[in-house]
């Protein structure tokens, strides 16, 4: 499992790659936070629970990343480790996840640029050869 940052003129794309749908979602979250800080410098000390739901898997990805950005603002935290559980069937997708991180510390975190929002642009959640990808463009 890993993530990729995709080139994009105004913003950036994030792609999570995993053996399961859940792993791909967790990696997409790591990609999103990698834009904001050096992930290795973010200690997974505090834990936050995140819930999201949507009509489609794509909508669920956008909602999951959106919830994490909200937690960032409300708690003043960055996250580096994620765990995701997804239950879904036609038209009703639910995610319960956990994120681990710590308070933002500009002296230690080698900060990047703030991600404003996850968007539906370029959104893809699909099975590949032997795993899953979950990706979308994020607004910076």
């Amino acid at each position, binding site marked *: 499992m890993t993530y990729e940052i995709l*080139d994009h*003129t*105004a913003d950036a794309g994030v*792609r999570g790659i995993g053996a399961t749908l859940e792993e791909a979602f967790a990696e997409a979250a790591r990609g999103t936070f990698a834009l904001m800080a050096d992930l290795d410098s973010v200690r997974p000390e505090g834990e936050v629970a995140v819930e999201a739901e949507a009509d489609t898997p794509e909508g669920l990805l*956008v909602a999951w990343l959106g919830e994490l*950005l909200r937690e960032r603002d409300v708690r003043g935290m960055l996250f580096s480790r994620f765990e995701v559980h997804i239950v879904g069937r036609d038209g009703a997708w639910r995610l319960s996840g956990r994120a681990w991180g710590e308070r933002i510390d500009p002296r230690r975190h080698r900060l*990047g640029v703030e991600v404003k929002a996850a968007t*539906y642009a370029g959104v893809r959640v699909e099975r590949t050869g032997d795993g899953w990808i979950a990706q979308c463009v994020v607004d910076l």
Partner: protein
Amino acid sequence: MTTQNLVRRGEYMWELPKTGEMRVPGWIFVSEALLQPLLSGEAEGEGEGGGGHDWNALVQVRNVACLPGIVRASIAMPDVHPGYGFPIGGVGAFDPEEGVVAMGGVGFDINCGVRVLATPLTRADVEPRKEEVADALFAHVPAGLGSEGKIRLTLPGVDEVLEKGAEFALARGYGLPEDLEYIEENGRMDGADPAAVSLKAKEREFRQIGTLGSGNHYLEVQYVEEVRDPEAARAYGLEEDQILIAIHCGSRGLGHQIGQDSLPELERASRKYGIPIRERELVCAPIRSPEGEKYLSAVFAGINCAFANRQVIAHLVREALAPLFSLPPGKIRTLYDVGHNNVKFERHRVDGEEVRLLVHRKGSTRAFGPGRRENPDRYRKVGHPIFVGGTMGTASYILRGTEEGMEKVFGSGVHGAGRAMSRAKAKRRWRGQELIQSLARQGIVVRAHSYGGAAEEAPGAYKDVDLVVDAAVGAGLNALVAKVRPLVCIKG
């Protein structure tokens, strides 16, 4: 899309003729040089970003032209580039009875905009003290990822921000009463309803009011290099060598959350009212529907949030600079404050008749021309000023609204250079620290909260702002008042 689809209407105007489901034509106000990257899609990163989805500003112009109730044309201003649903630099006006409100026409950073402060200082006063000025602003104005404002809000406080805009900040002692006259809508948007904004959105503002943010947001100390329109400059109180301060920021996390919350709601509304979704970010609702009314009330509240943020930051700038130069804070006045991600009800002349329209401007400022009653008294005769941001190393421009702009583009203006290169590429090409040193050699002092962020904002990653201004002025949409140059730049 190719040139075959476009009909040339003038040196700076191209028409995408009304075909298929388009309800109006597309009007694209660009020079030949600015048109090329739109056609090739190459500079836009097509096929790369977002895994090869078709991301083309002209397709977006066409999609907007298909929306119900659109009036006159789907408009692309000279700084047009691909956005989310609407292109950036997109303007769309809708009939309030038949038309829709579209989220893509506002974007995630609601009322992102620019406040410019005019000082009595000259370049000679600041030039020898640039480092000191940069340090004072960097220390005093919260910026960068995770920065927290000097005010802490609770829920009732946020509701007050959403209802009262800049007046909220003023009541808390931030700024001067005379600021309000020089803010679009006098800093308070009518029709804002805090109840239309989710608790999730409001929580994000608790620590963020009065913070600049990061990315392309900045705080810049500039000098007026050249005045090109003496009459307008007189009205604005501008002179050559004068020091100005530009503040570029928006509604922060609260505005982003309104967008995030509205996306699924408006997607459902589009289906419910049978409006085809041509791009997933181009969801909308009829203006006269519960969903449309709720979204508008929330956006108007988000507009007020941005006005309040810029009012607080303007005050912090005064606090930082006034003591350095022994100035009374009142000597640093608000030249103007104008947003570039907005939707508003306005009155315009269409086919010789004055009508009320809902005007979306995504990456385009309002630019009302001479005589409009919305303009401050001092500016009424010449039209109000608009600010076109360059990059850290290049010029910015002060333009004004024109009669022709009122007729052609509902009184709209250009807002900036627009990116030409992805952030990832910029980061590979430039190193933040080296870039800052090279700008210092050109006399521009940069303080950045993130070196990586600074590299992404390298001047070379943007289009040439001069070309954008040439096209806006050449097409008659805006008129050139003054050219300004940066001395100090604070990046989030």
